[in-house]
């Protein structure tokens, strides 16, 4: 039995012009990343990376995504993240927040990060219902899709 080592990269998508939502889904992010890997490291790296590659989580509101890749292809992915300036049709860049070996560790980090984001955003909401909605949207961490 061979153990498959994965790496989970938590990234923040920073848009060029501040917007509330990016209208990006996990499929767009995955397509964009693979396109840039092929551009900078060729079909060889794409072949290594494609196996086991998946965007596990993509939150439009907090602009945070978790990308899973195989341990041996992680270098190719993490090194091109700073070079990306266009995600889908949106002018934006990636900011690497955390690289973990398990999704649990990654989730812990994301929860902490989003809690800090909530603390900042709660002050800007007027009604209690809006706050509840914001809390729901921000803290949803459905990585089992």
């Amino acid at each position, binding site marked *: 039995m061979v153990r498959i080592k994965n790496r989970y990269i938590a990234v923040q998508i920073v848009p060029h012009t501040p917007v509330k939502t990016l209208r990006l889904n996990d499929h767009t992010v995955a397509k964009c990343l693979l396109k840039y*890997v*092929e*551009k*900078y*490291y*060729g*079909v*060889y*790296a794409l072949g290594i990376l494609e196996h086991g590659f998946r965007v596990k989580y993509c939150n439009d509101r907090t602009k945070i995504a978790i990308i899973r890749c195989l341990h041996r292809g992680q270098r190719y992915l993490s*090194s091109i993240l700073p070079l990306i300036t266009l995600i889908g049709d949106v002018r934006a860049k990636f900011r690497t927040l955390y690289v973990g070996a398990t999704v649990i560790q990654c989730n812990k980090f994301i929860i902490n990060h989003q809690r800090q984001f909530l603390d900042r955003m709660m002050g800007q909401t007027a009604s209690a219902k809006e706050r509840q909605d914001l809390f729901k949207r921000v803290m949803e961490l459905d990585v089992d899709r």
Partner: protein
Amino acid sequence: MNAYCYFDVQLKIRHCDTIELTPTYFRGCVLNSLEGFFGEIGGKTTLEIVRFSVEQRRVVFRVPEEFAQRTRTAISLIGHYQEVPCHFQVLQTSKTPLDFDKELDDTPESAQL
């Protein structure tokens, strides 16, 4: 000092009269293959042609040692030269300079560029 790896390769092609084999075209062919397979970052290297023979369709070139493996892979994967199906046969690789001058001298009608 940079260490180099020398390659002695021969172009194997069926219809040789339809192609134009020049050092520049050959270099472009290898660099294109390198870039296609290893990308803009992974496939950029300096490739210097040391010896070139059109008659024998044989080239000796050198690349930095760290790119030797990638270059070998890229050369093996070349399937077309100027849109004509072909392949490159790697005759010899070495860390010391290679030369096919002696072999060319044995055949007097062959010319060397």
